[in-house]
């Protein structure tokens, strides 16, 4: 395959395949609606959804920033607390013994069920949404960072000890950079979860945002708008997770995931 062909192939792979898959999905949706003759207020056909979505595009766009802000702040909070906590747990056995059972145990609490409590505590502003998104996104950040820090070849640690390096320098120059692939894997899961947290937070108690809009549309049995919001949320999520994907490629070009992707795929 020539270089030009390969480049064309890569462009088709990046844009063409997802587009084909998406259109295929819409056709299947349309087909299901036509064949089952399902009521429109139960499952509107895709065209009606798109129509409703474009008609109310201004409303969707206006309600997007508060939602995205809550998601991003929640994600950022999870990262800012999660990574230092993971470092402390890896660096100190007593701290690990203190925090690890708490962190794992806290996963047993359905955090979505905390949403009403957070509303009682923090009101209807952005804060409870941020906190809910953070609580949900926090776990994969901590666990992946800790696993990443621990997965280093012990001979690296022997090497830096023979260099007389203090612990903080070992973390900043060796352990954290080498854990980046796992940390980014955690970020992707965390971002997906932060989106859930942000939306659920708005559904429970808010006066703005896409989650709030979803509840209002649902209350009006405006299924076309509900689905339009869901489709829009898919796009917003793709952008948010996509930003992390791009940041990953830029910051860890050496990642095995980046380099071996084409090797693990079955060649056609």
């Amino acid at each position, binding site marked *: 395959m020539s270089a030009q062909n390969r480049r064309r192939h890569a462009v088709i792979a990046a844009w063409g395949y997802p587009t084909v898959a998406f259109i295929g999905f819409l056709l299947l949706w349309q087909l299901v609606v036509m064949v089952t003759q399902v009521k429109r207020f139960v499952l509107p056909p895709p065209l009606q959804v798109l129509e409703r979505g474009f008609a109310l595009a201004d409303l969707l766009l206006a309600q997007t920033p508060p939602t995205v802000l809550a998601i991003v702040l929640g994600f950022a909070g999870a990262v800012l607390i999660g990574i230092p906590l993971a470092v402390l747990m890896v660096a100190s056995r007593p701290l690990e013994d203190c925090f690890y059972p708490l962190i794992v145990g806290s996963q047993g609490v359905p955090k979505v069920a905390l949403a009403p409590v957070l509303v009682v505590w923090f009101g209807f502003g952005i804060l409870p949404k941020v906190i809910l998104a953070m609580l949900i996104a926090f776990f994969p950040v901590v666990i992946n960072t800790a696993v990443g820090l621990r997965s280093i070849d012990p001979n690296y640690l022997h090497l830096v*000890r023979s260099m007389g390096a203090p612990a903080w*320098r*070992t973390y900043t120059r060796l352990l954290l950079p080498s854990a980046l692939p796992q940390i980014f894997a955690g970020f992707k899961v965390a971002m997906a979860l932060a989106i859930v947290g942000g939306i659920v937070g708005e559904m429970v108690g808010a006066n703005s945002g896409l989650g709030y809009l979803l509840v209002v549309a649902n209350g009006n049995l405006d299924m076309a708008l509900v689905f339009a919001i869901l489709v829009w949320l898919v796009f917003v999520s793709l952008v948010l997770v996509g930003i992390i994907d791009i940041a990953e490629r830029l910051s860890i070009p050496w990642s095995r995931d980046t380099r071996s992707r084409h090797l693990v795929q079955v060649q056609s």
Partner: protein
Amino acid sequence: MAFLTQLSVHASAEGRVGGATENGARYQPRTEMIRIENLGKTFTTADGVVTALENIDVTIEEGEFVSIVGPSGCGKSTLLMCIAGLIEASVGSVMVGSQRVSGPFTELGIVFQEALLLDWRSVLGNVLFQIEMRGLDPKAYESRARELLDRVGLGGFEGKKPWELSGGMRQRVAICRALIHDPPLLLMDEPFGALDTLTREQMNVDLQRLCAQTGKTALFITHSISEAVFLSDRVLVMTPRPGRIIADLPIAFAAETRRLSIRTTVEFAEQEKKIYSIFRSIGVLRDE
């Protein structure tokens, strides 16, 4: 490969290069560098207590290149770790220079079997990693790093990333990293064990010249008898676990004769034969 063209960029070129004596030894031992006394190491495992090392008494002079050969699991890596202070000995003591080793010893360079490079740093950045971790100014060592890389045949590769290099090149970078701070002592734990035979032979030649020129004291661990004979002033032979030093053989080839051609000489074969016969006598090697 363009390699080691100019003589000693740093350190003293005296000793190994200039010090060849009448009896063929390529340097005159001067001061004691390492003194190991009655060293022993036991590990407690699920199956009980395992003795890894027993009654190790070794003295290594400054500027000497000493190899340790022994079967897998005989504790030779453990011995190296004890000297570096990365593992605490159960009994006995290790002195390096005038200091008793307790805790990680930092006046040395270490090369492991894996190059242990950092993928996010360039070749030059990997060499300077040693300097940064010591809290020194990398700028001050940059020209020295470039010189070292040039001497091991990696001139022009400074900006490459580790994954763009072959196994032999990666190990050359690791050797530069171990020498950048000009340590008096170089510890190597099977540094060429993962390389193919041809690359390994070339690395032997290059390491021999590098050590001869810089006058470093070197402790080299290997499985390979011919590698040990080719590189060393002395070969220490170890028994299977519990590891003890069963023989201490001087190898009296002059530095300038240690070239590829020496491997096919009768004298070289004689030295190898001595070590083979020791391994046969202790049952490490058998015909049947």
